[in-house]
């Protein structure tokens, strides 16, 4: 498969602060790529660089085989959707949609044809003559997406498009964007700090921190095998439980104070040596309550019902950790339960380098 967008050795500084450092990223044709990270990690900057809204300090941007590093945004075959919608407030929806086409002197009949098609697809036909101020947030974002659609963009760029919407609308539009990608098959680059959006939408996720890509992989791989402590902590809600302790090579186990957890079922990429400081991480859903007597005994300290699931909090050598149970489970505060860790699904990191072992 060909690459649709290639970012080569990109550096971007804001004053003396390095935002992006020597970054490489290849995005395949028709791929849905999500750039995920906390605020300030450089993901929006990267998107703006791809769009041509910022000048690079070094590196190249190649879109559809065309080196666009020095090209104007309008010549990059892109459409962009912004968090703040960025609809022109003085123009009707129709004029908003057609603005780009009118700027490039497209004939009227072609404009109306394209608007027809886009507004049909996004179900905004009845809104065409309204002003943006008369639309709801969800409708505004649909129009903003439509603006990218009518331009026949090869690559769609989304800059946190759903962050200003309430939870229900967000889920609705997330579904629509996914459907749009399925139907159009365009390359899409989507910036978000919301891991649910990233997990649900992406073909691949690039998790970013401090201007560097921490891990670039499918959502499944990122969730199940985070390559470092940051990714493990950032992805997943409720987040992964971590315990810091030592590796005992004689018994192939993790030790925290006097407690031992056997690691025979864990597949090490790099086996640590004896007495190394390691971090043992396990997701709340990979801990199960056992019916039999083998396992560790804990007292329930806190219960957080979340509807579909219930989160219960226990503590292991004074470190609180959570266990995800079905919403129907009926435990009470102070109950004593026996649990098992699913070691196969755990993640173990070196404490110094914070890399996966």
């Amino acid at each position, binding site marked *: 498969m060909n690459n649709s967008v290639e970012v080569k050795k990109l550096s971007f500084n804001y004053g003396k602060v390095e935002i992006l450092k020597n970054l490489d990223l290849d995005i395949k044709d028709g791929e849905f790529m999500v750039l995920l990270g906390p605020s300030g990690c450089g993901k929006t900057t990267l998107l703006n660089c791809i769009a041509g809204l910022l000048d690079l300090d070094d590196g190249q941007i190649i879109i559809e085989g065309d080196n666009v590093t020095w090209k104007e945004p309008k010549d990059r075959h892109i459409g962009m959707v912004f968090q703040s919608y960025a609809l022109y407030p003085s123009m009707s929806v129709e004029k908003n949609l057609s*603005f780009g086409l009118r700027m*490039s002197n497209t004939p009227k009949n072609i404009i109306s044809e394209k608007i027809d098609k886009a507004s049909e697809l996004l179900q905004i036909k009845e809104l065409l003559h309204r002003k943006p101020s008369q639309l709801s947030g969800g409708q505004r974002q649909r129009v903003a997406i439509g603006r990218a659609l009518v331009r026949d963009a090869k690559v769609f760029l989304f800059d946190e498009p759903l962050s200003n919407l309430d939870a229900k609308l967000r889920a609705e539009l997330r579904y629509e964007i996914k459907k749009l990608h399925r139907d159009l098959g365009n390359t899409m680059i989507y910036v978000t700090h919301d891991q649910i959006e990233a997990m649900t939408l992406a073909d691949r996720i690039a998790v970013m921190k401090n201007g560097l890509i921490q891990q670039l992989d499918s959502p499944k791989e990122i969730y199940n095998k985070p390559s470092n402590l940051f990714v493990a902590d950032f992805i997943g809600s409720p987040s992964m439980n971590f315990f810091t302790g030592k590796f005992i090579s004689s018994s192939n186990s993790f030790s925290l104070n006097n407690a031992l957890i056997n690691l025979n079922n864990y597949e090490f990429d790099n086996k640590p040596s004896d007495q190394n400081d390691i971090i043992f991480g396990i997701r709340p859903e990979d801990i199960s309550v056992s019916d039999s007597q083998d396992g560790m005994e804990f007292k329930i300290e806190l219960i957080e019902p979340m509807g579909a699931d219930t989160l219960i909090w226990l503590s292991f050598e004074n470190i609180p950790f959570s266990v995800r149970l079905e919403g129907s489970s009926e435990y009470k505060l102070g109950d004593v339960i026996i649990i098992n860790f699913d070691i196969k699904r755990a993640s173990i990191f070196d404490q110094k380098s914070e890399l996966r072992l």
Partner: protein
Amino acid sequence: MISNTIEARGPRPKHLSIGRIGMYCFIVMCALFFLMPLYVMLVTSFKDMDEIRSGNLLYIPKSLSFYAWPKAWGEACTGFVCEGLKPGLVNSLKITIPSVIVSVSLGAINGYALAFWRFKGAYFFFGLCLFGAFIPYQVMVYPLLKIESALGIYSSLPGIILVHTIFGMPILTLIFRNFYASLPIDLFKAARIDGGNFLKIFFYVIIPMSTPITIVAVILQVTGIWNDFLLGLIFAGRDNQPMTVQLNNIVQVDYGVAEYNVDMAATILTSMIPLAVYFVSGRWFVRGIAAGAIKG
């Protein structure tokens, strides 16, 4: 415990406190104080000279005299010509209208460029503009005069328009830049992706959103240029003397009697345009000043 107070419910009862009464009194007194000169001007302009000489400045006129107004408008002598303020009004309009249009347009483009197209040295340029806003313009009168005579437009209509445009530039650039800086930058980015260039984005996207700040700028410039005396006197030339200069010539008589009623009428006539502008657009002025909240 027995209590005869009413159970609290609904809106809190409002009290007229002493502090509040004091505040109202203060506000009313301030208003009266500032309106006093206007009152004196108005009543004096409707008195005849005998009554004025009797010295009761604050009294309302015993009999209404309409002698002063037509004289101020069409007959009072400004120097050697005795045509009243009429030609001055025309001159002032000829100076003010083009000056306002040119300076506000340039200020808007400047502000737009500074807010959105962050070219190299933009901050330095903006700093210079700010600095320019604080320099008293009397300092620059002589150099400007030399420049204009070298250009051959000294003492002409284009000359005075250029001067007003130059002196309006710092403050206009400042207010337009600050207004545009408060607009969401994403709008500008979207317009660039949609293929707008510098001027297209300005005309199609930015100008339609600029109504409130443009009104502020126009009011500022209309009143400033209309009320200007010094620049008009120096740069406009004999044929284009604005109303303020002619008013001064009416009031400053070296011989004959000082006709205070005519002076007052002439003063009111001269200040009519800025007053009208404020009355018509005061609402917009406040709204524009408070702008920044104007989005989407």
